[in-house]
């Protein structure tokens, strides 16, 4: 028997393992959400133990995989910044008005140290509530946005 996933009436994901045993309330977690989101996904039990590990998602059969991806999409929140419309000040803390792939929003940047450089020109901006905003490629932003961002780097 292969591993299967189900969603119950309370909206929780349940894992049915190889022995047919059912584990309700599992949570999918990516091992490298930033550097290699496509590889390594674990299913964790509610008390924080690893129940299953997939090197790649295609190890799962289609229906379960769809459920898993759906659950990941619900849990993962990292808006991608498309443009920066303005900042309240060039010294921190300051408020940023940004346009993201999930709509326009405003957040507070507490300090310049909350902008983390990842490889390949990617940036990760953490706001005062711990939400991460991703800048996929700084060079691809429009000029005004780039100029604003550059002041903080």
């Amino acid at each position, binding site marked *: 028997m292969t591993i299967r996933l189900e969603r119950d009436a*309370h909206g929780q994901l349940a894992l049915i393992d190889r022995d047919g045993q059912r584990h309700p309330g599992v949570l999918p977690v990516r091992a490298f959400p930033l550097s290699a989101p496509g590889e390594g996904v674990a299913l964790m039990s509610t008390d924080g133990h690893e129940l299953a590990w997939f090197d790649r998602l295609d190890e799962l059969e289609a229906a379960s995989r769809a459920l898993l991806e759906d659950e990941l999409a619900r849990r993962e929140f990292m808006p991608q910044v498309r443009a920066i419309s303005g900042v309240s000040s060039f010294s921190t803390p300051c408020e940023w008005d940004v346009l993201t792939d999930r709509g326009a*929003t405003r957040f507070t940047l507490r*300090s310049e140290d909350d902008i983390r450089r990842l490889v390949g020109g990617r940036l990760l901006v953490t706001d005062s509530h*711990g939400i991460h905003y991703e800048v996929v490629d700084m060079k691809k932003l429009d000029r005004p946005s780039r100029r604003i961002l550059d002041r903080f*780097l």
Partner: protein
Amino acid sequence: MTRATPAVPLPDDLPLPWRDALAGRLAPDEAVQAWLQTDLDATLHFSASLLVLTDRRLLAADAPSATDWQSWPLAAGQRFDHVDHAGVGTLALHDAHHRLATWRYTLALNTEALRLADQHTRLIERIADPHAVHEDEDGLCPRCKAPLPPDDDECPLCERATVKPPETWALLRLWRFARPYRGRLLAGFLLTLASTAANLVPPYLTIPLMDKVLIPHQTGTRITFDAVWPYMAGLLAAALFAWALGWARTYILARVSERIGADLRTTTFDHLMGQSLEYFGGKRTGDLMARIGAETDRINVFLSLHLLDFATDVLMLFMTAVVLFSINPWLALVTLLPLPVIAWMIHTVRDRLRTGFEKVDRIWGEVTNVLADTIPGIRVVKAFAQEKRESERFAAANRRNLETNDRVNRVWSLFGPTVTLLTEVGLLFVWGFGIWQVGNDHITVGVLTAFIAYISRFYLRLDSMSRIVSVTQKAAAGAKRIFDILDHASSVPEPARPVHLEQVSGRIELRSVGFRYGNRAVLRGVDLDIAPGEFIGLVGHSGSGKSTLVNLINRFYDVSSGSIRIDGTDIRALPVAEYRRHIGLVLQEPFLFFGTIADNIAYGRPDATRDEIIAAARAAHAHEFILRLPHGYDSMVGERGQTLSGGERQRISIARALLIDPRILILDEATSAVDTATEKEIQRALDNLVQGRTTLAIAHRLSTLRKADRLVVLDRGQIVEVGQHDDLMAREGHYYRLYMAQQRQAEADAAEGVLA
């Protein structure tokens, strides 16, 4: 159409469009209990929707204009589930069988969401048991549950959460540091002025020297000593005068400069010391060091030297212009030709220079970061033979530093010479125009030479003024980074209206304490009452939040929700340092400062006598090993105490905590770094010391907590069991499993020992 206005008024802070939409939907006597305007939709896109809890149902809509409001009557068995992950909170409404709906929001709204869920739980409980009584929440802040000041609805603790964007114009704000020295700065300014004025005398003397002595000589009149000496003496006097003034000025300003720098550094450092651990958690040591070290230096030089230079330059420019105009207005006008061009240039490069210098400063911070990272970690670097890689990292940081500097220098190096070129061209014009005027007998040769002499001074000023542009922008960049530190209000702020506790009995109450590091919830709903003098053992798996709980009690961080009270007073209402004096702390990783052993033991009470120090060391079982050191209590411990073993450091830190004779003793793995025999010794010492003090001890070796009055078991940020050892063993729960696992381990170790 007239809408029925509900008899019970809507909450004041409900946004307007929602008010209108909601007003028409409520029954006349339906009262809104709580509401939440979420900021995310189901697909996690930013958009607002509303969730309202009334005394009889839940109402929800995706937009104020929506016609399809959803409604769920309150019913037994209904509940809200709350989870948060990666900065997104989810409230899910369930009944006994299904999930009915979910709402998502960013953590900015977390307290509101939790309040709504709490309120909902209370209403549902009342359905089951209409007479259920609830803890009176009057007089508590609805957000953070801290007690509100009497006759005041605003919570002094929550108010500070709003960010205040710092003022711009960092340079002007520096005045605060120059102010105490304004007398001396004024003296310096006047001296500068006078010495520059003295410098203006010689060219003026050249006019008569030319026109009355030299030129008549060429036309046949002999030069007499009498005609010459007054001018020569005047020149000498002017030079001497300028020298004396210059000396006085430099001396005064150098002194002021050092003092301003020292003030700036100490103020910044003082402010830094007042910051919470949260602040330091997010900062790089090297960067802070660079700011306090190099940048304050640059600023003070700017304040005391360049700023004055600039002021005198402006004045001198003005004065020279007056002199020039008085000699010959037409020539003077020609002289001023390059000015507008230079002004325009300054305007264009100013911003580029400042942002450039800001970058240079930041990258310089990165260079020092590498140092601050690598040097303390040198053992690891060497153990893994990664010296090359660290060198590479340092070289890379340096390369980046070079690149950024190169970029600024390009702008700046072009700027200076361009100004010089412009002034040269200006000079050319003056020569041309002047010769033409001399040719037409409008002016004498002497006037022209004096003019040229003045003009070169004038242009020199202009030149140095334009050079100041770069220094100014450098200082502005530095000032901004200093004010970044100075403007950062501590996240563990001093109370606005402090309460002073003379005596502390040591009663600690935790009320639904929640805490998160960033977006990660580490503690949830922790309730605990600790009686004065009680010995509490905190146990739980690694990472369950024991140290975090202790950090909160120590007020290294402030709770995210709930409150901690000592003797009935919220700890946020007590002055931080005063409160911490009541607490003796022994940390998981003991840290010693560079200095002697005696200094380190007396760290919390520098006025302790030698006898007291020795008594504390004896109690901590450190006395004997200290005596075995070559210099006894006067031995140096090295940086971070690295010349001592882990266990020795640990015992010194115990002695340090004991010396302040605290009402509350916190031991975080105080005996983890010592062997079993020493542990037993320390344990015996501690047994005496905990008498009469409220003690919180964390230990992995559960056997060390056998004497505890109560054991508190934490699991993933929640208290799961509380009780005495025997009770908890009988309950066969979390504690039992922890204990048995250790027992088995001990037996296995013992068995191995027998075999070996």
